[in-house]
């Protein structure tokens, strides 16, 4: 009775039955809705730490931060280097077009010196390391003193590339950057092509070619010159990426670890320059692992009361059906010193529900017991969080099994 899936292929007059099993197996492969165009964002479950990979429809790859935080105490975190290497191998690549370190705190850079190839020292050039075609760092990453570990390696690499004048974008130009360049026998003008200021588009990408553009929000001038000492969180790189696919544009806002005062200032500056559309977001990587300090000065009992400019960003600039992503540990409904703070989560949930969206925590996705990378597809219908019900073999084989006794 049941006939083949081809039954009635184009028989416009035939009642059709559901997709065949063969067709349903195709569910394992996401099919872009139109124009064969789909960008993908991947947020990795790494505890209170950030890594996001952006795969553009044209094949270019960007990595925003790198934090290999999996260890014996935290086996539920993803094995980031293994995951990234698998993806590169599938794409037959050995490099990223861009690796951005939004700032040099451990939860955004951990293990970088073991994973990437760095040009400044042979020690970091062994076989199997991953190349960085273009490095993005805030100016503070060049000028800070007293760094150690991964932060020092990245600083040295950034300095090396800036001296070479190639393969790097430095975000903002505080006086200290000019001083550093002068001290190294260079002028700011001679390296101006490597510098991108807040309020500008990053020239490495443009809409017609890449279907994406990156608008830099932070670090911005309002706080640049008052700075005697770099404060990493405040000087972090924040940006809005605008993707186009099938005639729709979809906006990703990445806020790194910015505290509330800086977000408020960012909102004010952007509005003052009449760039309000650059604050809009369909997907937002919310700041600082859901810390209340990125919303307002007070934690509150059940919910944080955000600064008015911050509230404006989340409540007025989130677009319909948007997604707020907390790169953090699961939200526990109890008082904690370290983020994530449930009071902040309560605010974010309420804000995003206001425009029919979702609040998602990386370490809770899809289930807290086995978190998997959070994949967001961007196509003509906007952003869509991939949700795989089932597929146990894929989940199980994507990570080591628990030790057998």
């Amino acid at each position, binding site marked *: *009775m*049941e006939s083949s*899936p*081809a039954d*009635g*292929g*184009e*028989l*416009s*007059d*035939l*009642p*059709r*039955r*559901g*997709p*065949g*099993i063969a*067709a*349903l197996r195709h*569910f394992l492969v996401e*099919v872009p*809705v139109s124009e064969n165009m789909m960008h993908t964002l991947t947020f990795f479950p790494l505890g209170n730490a950030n890594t996001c990979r952006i795969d553009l429809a044209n094949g270019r790859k960007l990595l925003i931060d790198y934090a290999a935080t999996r260890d014996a105490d935290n086996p539920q975190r993803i094995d980031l280097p293994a995951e990234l290497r698998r993806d590169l191998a599938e794409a037959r690549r050995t490099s990223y077009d861009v690796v951005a370190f939004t700032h040099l705190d451990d939860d955004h850079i951990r293990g970088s010196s073991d994973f990437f190839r760095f040009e400044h020292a042979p020690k970091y050039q062994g076989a199997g390391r991953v190349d960085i075609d273009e490095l993005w760092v805030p100016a503070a990453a060049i000028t800070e003193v007293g760094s150690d570990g991964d932060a020092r390696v990245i600083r040295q690499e950034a300095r090396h590339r800036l001296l070479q004048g190639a393969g790097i974008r430095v975000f903002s130009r505080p006086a200290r950057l000019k001083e550093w360049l002068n001290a190294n026998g260079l002028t700011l003008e001679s390296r101006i092509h490597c510098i991108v200021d807040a309020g500008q588009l990053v020239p490495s990408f443009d809409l017609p070619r890449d279907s994406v553009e990156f608008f830099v929000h932070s670090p911005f001038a309002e706080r640049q010159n008052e700075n005697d000492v770099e404060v990493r969180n405040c000087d972090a790189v924040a940006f809005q990426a605008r993707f186009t696919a099938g005639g*729709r544009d*979809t906006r990703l806002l990445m806020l790194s670890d910015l505290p509330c005062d800086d977000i408020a200032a960012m909102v004010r500056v952007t509005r003052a320059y009449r760039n309000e559309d650059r604050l809009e977001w*369909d997907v937002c990587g919310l700041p600082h692992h859901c810390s209340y300090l990125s919303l307002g000065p007070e934690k509150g009992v059940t919910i944080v009361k955000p600064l008015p400019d911050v509230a404006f960003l989340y409540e007025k600039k989130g*677009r*319909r*059906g*948007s997604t707020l992503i907390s790169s953090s540990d699961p939200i526990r409904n109890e008082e904690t010193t370290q983020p994530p703070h449930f009071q902040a989560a309560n605010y974010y949930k309420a804000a995003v529900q206001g425009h029919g969206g*979702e609040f998602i925590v990386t370490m809770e996705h*899809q*289930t807290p*017991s086995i978190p998997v990378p959070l994949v967001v*597809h961007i*196509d*003509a*219908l*906007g*952003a*869509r*969080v*991939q*949700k*795989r*019900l*089932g*597929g*146990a073999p894929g989940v199980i084989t994507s990570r080591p099994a628990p030790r057998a006794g």
Partner: protein
Amino acid sequence: MKSLLEPPGSPAEHADLRTTLGRSLADVLQNGILPFVDLREVRRDPMADVVVVSIVPALPQDPVADIRRPEHIAIRVRDSEDRTPEVFALRKDFPRNGLHLNVSDPGSPWASLCLYDEGWQDIRLHLTPASLLAQVQEWLSRSARGDLHLPEQPVEPFVIPSAITLVLPPSLVTDTASAPFRIESRGSDGQIVLVAAEADGRRPPGHLAFAYRTRPTTQTTLRQHPADLEGLDAMLQPLGFELVQTLRSTLRDLKNSHQDFDVAAHEWRPVLVFAVPLLREDGAAPERDQVFSYSVDTTVLELGRALGIWDVISGTVGLVLSPDDSARGQGLRLLPLRPVFDLTPEMARSLSGFRGGDLSLGAIGVGALGSQVVMNLARSGFCRWVVVDNDSLLPHNLVRHALPRSAIGFPKAETTGLFAESITSQGMEVRSLVADVLEGDPKVDNALRQVDAVLDMSATATVARALAQDREGFPRCISLFLNPMGTDLVALVEDGERRIRLDALEMQYYRALLRDPRLDGHLTDPLGRLRYGTSCRDVTMQIPQEQIAVAAGIGARAVRMFTTNPDAGIRVWRMDAELAVNAASTDVFPTREWGCGDWTVVADEWLLEHLAEMRHDRLPSETGGILVGFHDMQRHRIYIAEALAAPPDSTERPVYFDRGCVGLRAHLAEIQRVTNGALSYVGEWHSHPGTSTRPSTQDGQVLEFLSTHMAMDGHPGLMVIVGQDDAAVFVDSTEPCVPNGAC
């Protein structure tokens, strides 16, 4: 929740569940390991377990259908677990249009998701509670994205589950008013198939179908099956279709026009068919028909009586003068049928995934290979044919022929044509001509001139040469033939403009046999016969059908492939002992011809380039060698396929060349062996270091020597002189031959 419909059944406890699937669904949901799905409640109705869940689909920001996060879903598993579980959406305003839904039973308020294309027996092999839930989630996610249908399939949202399939003539779509047509019941109890009867249908027709078209609508009309005639009437009212009046009038006409009506009316069971043209929007042209049909659970006689138009008085049906308008078929139950249309060439093309145009083809030779290539192509929707063959089917043909035994003794052209025609219910145009194409019958030639491409699948290269040289105004020709072992299929394909024809392609194919190691042993004859190349293309007697089937499959595909572009081609497919098939393509070069009195010399650009290279290698000396090719004595054509380099005992000097002979005979013998005698010696070539290709006095003596000796075989003497810029060709004369319009 007010926005939700009450699920089937009434609340129950986990322990009340009776089915394996129902219980395991509840179990897996209770232990909470599945993301995106929550158990809401379990219920029982008199015949089934009901598990109610909420499921979170993956929604895009701009969904194309109003799917929500989450959706409440009831899964109903019958106690018998003998059919696919029903999956109902519980939201009151769950969208109905454009989604892939089953047509609900009468009275069912829930949208029934159509999840599977397979039968329950297939589904249950791999069904797990989690896979069922995943399927529901995917259904929701994909519906929200609008890509539940495979690309390019029209959206036909409603699915009619019915055990009985009704096969309708495709013309129903175009006919505005169909006369009642008879339907015979085929199939078995397990799978009843009703088929619109052929005029001479042998089975007694048990059903009579009444087909109607309604006026167009933008709405999907059928969401629930009506249970009875009254329900159907109500459903059709919004379309302005007066069911009762229309049926009364149809039945009256039938009674008045049919001779044995009184007897037949006792037997016929009425089937109602409705085609509803669907519009995408008001004012647009109808895009497609939604077709649905019902069997009325009574006889035509009783139907008329229930509609109040006649009475039966002592066995005679008598029309009543004024029908009782209150008799509207109350209580006549309907059985939904699953209507499908009989096959058309368009459907065949679509189902074959063939998006090419609709080409007309000529088929010359419908033997083992030809008949099967024709059938393969006809099945994939090639529907306009001219079939030419003068042979009749004999018993030994059945081993490797598309035709059945009942065709023994009949001309292969006619029977293959009929067989191809019978694949679709309509739309095939086959012209069968019992003739030998070589005889040049104008009727045959004119028919072949009308097609888009001619497939030469005859058993002889003579046909290919005739098509190439004797038939002007023909479309491009494609030769398909097997090697003597039946392991290799050869396709020689003329370009769309016929600049490179089959005869020239044949020579380049022979050259490929000499030069391409992938073609080793291609023309080896299993019986060791010398067959003069492929002049006789019949295969040996001991080749199994499966080998022909492989070749015919590739051949059909090759025709589809080659006709999509205008390039000429030579390709050989070889099946090895492991049954792997490898394709060897050969580059094709433009033909060059020279006219020499009543002779024509034919070569190609590769050969001229080859001569130039051999000349260049020996500069400043002259060099030369022999030419290998083929004489077509009928058409006075000399084909040069290959030129050999100077034998080692030759003398090469700036002012002269003495062609030696060491190893030459062995070489020639090898060429004859590899080409199975098709190629042999045709003449000599030598080079001049300068630009001049004028023959010297010595050259004149060479030519005279050649003419004298070749005359013993009835062949002319041929000599080619290669200069710096070009080559000159001489046949029995020191006057150079005249190039024919070049390439």
